[in-house]
């Protein structure tokens, strides 16, 4: 079985981990309540999608 030959240095570990980044979701404004929401998904704060009440709030 293949095994690492050398210990991974702290520098290399930290450099690798510094590349873990969370992406900011692209949010749009809800037409009804102007809250930020995800595109193509019913608004979680007012439950409206495409002019229809989808979720009870």
């Amino acid at each position: 079985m293949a095994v690492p030959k050398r210990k991974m240095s702290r520098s290399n570990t930290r450099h690798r981990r510094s590349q873990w980044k969370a992406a900011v979701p692209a949010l749009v404004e809800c037409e009804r309540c102007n809250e930020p929401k995800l595109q193509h998904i019913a608004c979680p704060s007012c439950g409206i999608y495409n002019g229809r009440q989808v979720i009870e709030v």
Partner: protein
Amino acid sequence: MPKPTKGARMGGSAAHQKAMLANLARSLFQHGRITTTEAKARRLRPYAERLITKAKKGDLHNRRLVLRDITDKDTVYTLFSEIAPRYSSRPGGYTRITKIGNRRGDNAPMAVIELVESLTVAQQATGEAEAATKRAVKEQEAKNAEAAEAKADEAAEEGVPNGTPEVEEG
């Protein structure tokens, strides 16, 4: 070799899958709208719409075909007597899926699948008008294509005598 069904597997065996789809469809017809994961909703849509199409035909044979999938007689009765007549003027597309974001806990994308309301008279009229326009455009295109082909044929026929000497020269 049997071709696997399109869409997500939904876990479990073929029998589990069949049972799950049947139960989802039964709940949908009972309640009109259900909240489930997006993958299940996407699998359910064609299944449920096929059942509604059968219900629209409304005869005993189709009732028996539906009863093979949904064994609850009460639900099948409402499907045939209340749900199917609503869609008599609607040419398919009886359900609507709306995404409602991810679930807490496992972050699964959730959706609401619901039976759509019956077409209003105005909607029906616009639908028919649109279909008529589309048909007219298609017929016009077909005519144009035929005319173009006929022209091309004529051109080719004319072109042949002219073309032969060139070949001989070459």
